[in-house]
C-alpha cells in the first residue's frame, strides 16, 4: 500500500511537471489527437513535447512489459496513472489501434519474435496500425470473409477487399483477417496476418460519411505480400485471435463513449443552451426529464464499467460482459447526442458551430454499428451469458 502511495505521489509530481498546460484541455478538433506513424503530424510544439515525454517515460503503454517497450507497471499502478491523468484532465499522449487492439492480441498470441519486432515501435508511436476486418459482403457475418491469402514460395500473396478500415489511408501496417483454408468450415479457415501497407499491392480509398468526415477507408489487396512469419497465432486459427481482439475493440468503443459522458455532464451543456427559469430549473420541463434520465443512466453505466473491471480483476468476470457494455454505452451515447441536438435548437443545425455538434451527432450513429452492431452484441449476450439456444 505504501508503495502505491509513493507511486501516486511521484506520478502526480511527474505529470504536474511534464504535462504542458494546453495538453490539459478537452480534445476538440480531430488534430488535437496524436496518432504517430512513419510520418507523424503535430499541431503544435506542446503536443509534440507531451508525446515525446510520455514515450520516453514509456507511459504510452504503461502496463505492457518493459522488454516490449512498455512501462512495466502493475495493474494497480496503471490504474493510479489513469486516475492521476484524469485529475489534471491530461490528454492521451498517443491514440493507437496498436496499443488498444493489436498489442493485447500479440501479447497473448504472438511469437517472441513478433513481440520483439512489433510492440516497441507501437509504444514509441513509430508505426501506425490499421484494422482490416470487415468486407463489403462480410459485415456482421464477419466469419464469412473471403479475402484470400495463399502461399507463394517464401511468402504469402493476399487478394481481396476490406472496408471500414479506420484511418486506413494513414496506416503504416495493417492486421488483416484472411482466408487461408478454402475447404474448411467458415470459422476454421481464417488467419490473422500482419501486412506492411507501404507496397504497391495495398491501396486505400477514403469513404465519405454522412457527417462529411472520411475516417474510414476501403482497402484493396492485389497480390499484396506478407512474410510467412507474420501470421498471429496458428494458421487457420485466426478466429480465436480475432474474437479476443474484438473484445478489446468493444471495450474501446463502449469506453470512449462513456469517457466523453464522464468528462462533462450532459446537464451542463443543456443548461448552457436552454437556461434555467426563476425557480432554478431547466426552462424546458420535458427536456429536463429526458436529461435527468440520461444522466442517471450514464452514471449507472459508468459505475457498471467500474464494477465489471473490479470483477475481472478479482477473477469473477464474465468475458462476454464487454458485449453488454458496448451495446449499452453506444446506445446511451446516441441518446445523449439526440438530447444535445434538441437542447441546441436551430443553432444545432448549422455547420459552423465551434463545437461542430451536428457533425459529432451524425458520427454517433455509427457507434452502434462499428465493432459489432447492437444486434450482434445482444446475440452474444443471449447466447454466451443467458445461455439461450441457437436456431
Amino acid at each position: 500500500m505504501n508503495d502505491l502511495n509513493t507511486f501516486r505521489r511521484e506520478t502526480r509530481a511527474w505529470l504536474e511537471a511534464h504535462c504542458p498546460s494546453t495538453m490539459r484541455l478537452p480534445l476538440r478538433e480531430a488534430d488535437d489527437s496524436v496518432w504517430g506513424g512513419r510520418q507523424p503530424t503535430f499541431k503544435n510544439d506542446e503536443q509534440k513535447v507531451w508525446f515525446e515525454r510520455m514515450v520516453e517515460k514509456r507511459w504510452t503503454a504503461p502496463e505492457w512489459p518493459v522488454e516490449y517497450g512498455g512501462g512495466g507497471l502493475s495493474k494497480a499502478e496503471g490504474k493510479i496513472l489513469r486516475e492521476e491523468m484524469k485529475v489534471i484532465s491530461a490528454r492521451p499522449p498517443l491514440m493507437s489501434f496498436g496499443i488498444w487492439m493489436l498489442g493485447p492480441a500479440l501479447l497473448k498470441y504472438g511469437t517472441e519474435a513478433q513481440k520483439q519486432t512489433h510492440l516497441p515501435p507501437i509504444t514509441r508511436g513509430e508505426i501506425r496500425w490499421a484494422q482490416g476486418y470487415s468486407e463489403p459482403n462480410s459485415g456482421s457475418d464477419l466469419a464469412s470473409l473471403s479475402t484470400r491469402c495463399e502461399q507463394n514460395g517464401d511468402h504469402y500473396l493476399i487478394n481481396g477487399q476490406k472496408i471500414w478500415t479506420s484511418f486506413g489511408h494513414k496506416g503504416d501496417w495493417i492486421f488483416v483477417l484472411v482466408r487461408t483454408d478454402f475447404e474448411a468450415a467458415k470459422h476454421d479457415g481464417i488467419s490473422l496476418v500482419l501486412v506492411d501497407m507501404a507496397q504497391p499491392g495495398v491501396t486505400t480509398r477514403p469513404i465519405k460519411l454522412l457527417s462529411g468526415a472520411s475516417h474510414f477507408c476501403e482497402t484493396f489487396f492485389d497480390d499484396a505480400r506478407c512474410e510467412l512469419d507474420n501470421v498471429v497465432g496458428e494458421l487457420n486459427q485466426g478466429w480465436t485471435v480475432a474474437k479476443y481482439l474484438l473484445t478489446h475493440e468493444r471495450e474501446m468503443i463502449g469506453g470512449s463513449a462513456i469517457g466523453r459522458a464522464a468528462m462533462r455532464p450532459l446537464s451542463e451543456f443543456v443548461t448552457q443552451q436552454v437556461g434555467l427559469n426563476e425557480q432554478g430549473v431547466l426552462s424546458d420541463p420535458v427536456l429536463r426529464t429526458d436529461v435527468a434520465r440520461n444522466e442517471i443512466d450514464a452514471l449507472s453505466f459508468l459505475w457498471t464499467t467500474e464494477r465489471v473491471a473490479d470483477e475481472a480483476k478479482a477473477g469473477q468476470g464474465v468475458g462476454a460482459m464487454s458485449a453488454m457494455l458496448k451495446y449499452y454505452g453506444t446506445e446511451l451515447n446516441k441518446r445523449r447526442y439526440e438530447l444535445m441536438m434538441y437542447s441546441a435548437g436551430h443553432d444545432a443545425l448549422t455547420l459552423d458551430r465551434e463545437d461542430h455538434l451536428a457533425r459529432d451527432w451524425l458520427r454517433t450513429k455509427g457507434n452502434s454499428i462499428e465493432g459489432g452492431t447492437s444486434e450482434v452484441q445482444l446475440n452474444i449476450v443471449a447466447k454466451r451469458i443467458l445461455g439461450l439456444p441457437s436456431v
Partner: protein
Amino acid sequence: MAMLLTDEQNMLRDSARSFLQGSAPIDQLRRLRDDASSDGYDRSTWRSMVELGWAGVLIPEEHGGVAMGHVAAGVIAEEMGRTLTASPFLSTAVMGAVAIAKNGSTSQRDRWLPTIADGSINVAVAVDEYRSHSPTLVSTTVQSSGRGFRISGSKSFVADGHVADLILVSGRTSGDDKDENGISLFLVPRDSAGITIERQMMVDSRNSASVQLDDVMVDKDSLVGEVGLGYAALEQVLDAGRACLAAEMLGSAEECLAQTIDYLSTRRQFDRTIGSFQALQHRAAHLFAEIEIGKSAVMRALQALDAGSKERQLIVSVAKSKVGRVAQLAAQEAIQMHGGIGMTDEINIGFFLKRVRVAEALYGDANFHADKFARMRNY
C-alpha cells in the same frame, strides 16, 4: 472502494438465499394472501430472521445488533426481492433502526435499539400524507403542550403500520408546506390515546396502513433530534429505506429474468424452443443489460451510505430512480415473454409485477427521484 462484495457479505448472501428459498419462498406470500392473514407476514419466519441477526443488521453491537452496514442490509433485501418475502425487515430493521441509531438520544437508543434487534418490537415510518411521496409536504400539526407535544394529522401508505408497536411520525412544528425547516420527528407508541390505524389491502398483498392521529399526546422524550430540524434525519431514514428498496427491486428483477430464461429454454412452439427466436433473445438480452446497470447503482448507493459519502443522497436517488424503472421493465417483460400463462395467478410472475409497482411508489418513484437528482445537480 472496489465494487465487490466482501467475503463476509458473500457468505451472508449465500445464507440469506438458502434460508429464504427454503423457509420463505413466494408460496408463503401466496398463502398469506389466500388465508387473508391478519398480520400480513409470518411471525415464526421473522423470528428466525431475528435469530439470524437480520433485525440488528444496522444496530451497533453495544445495543444488541450485528452492525454489518447498509451493503449487508441491501444483500438481505435483494434476496427478499427474489422470494418476495413479507416481513418487517425494511420498516423495522432498516428504517426504524437508522432513525434511532443515527438520530436518537442516548435514552432512546438504550430503550429501543435492543428491542428492535431482538425482534420484540416492530417500527413503522409514517411520513406521507398526499397522493404520492412528498416528505416536505407535512400538514400534521404539532403543538407544545406542558410536558410534551400534541400531534394531529393523518398519514397514509405506512408500511407495516398495523403491526407496528412504535411509529416514527413527521409533524410540522413551524413553516409552510414544502419547507424543510420546521419538520420534527416523534416516536409515537401505537397504544397512545388518539391513534387510529386502519390496514389498507394492497395490490401486492403486503402491509400498508393509514394512521390517524387525533390530539395524540407524547412526552418530550419521544422527540427525535431537535424541534424543527428533523428533515435531515428523515431524509437519512428515507435514503436507507430507498436504497434497500432498490436492492429488493433489483432482486425481483433478477428473479423475473431468471424465471423468464427458464421458460424460454423449455417452452416449444413452431417445433423449436422459443428461446431460439431472436426477437425474444433480444428482449431478454436488453433486460439483462438494464439489470446489470441497475445493480451497479444499488451497490454504489449502499456503499455511499456506509461510507457517509457527501454524494449519498444523489447516488441513492440515482439508484431508486434507475432500478425502479428497471424492475417495472423486468416484470412487464417477464409477463410478455411468458405469454398467456404469464397472465394467470397460477404462476408467480404476477406477484413480482404487483410488488415492484408498490415498491416503486414507496418513498419516491422514478420521477420523484429524477426530479430530486436534477435539483441536486442544479437544473
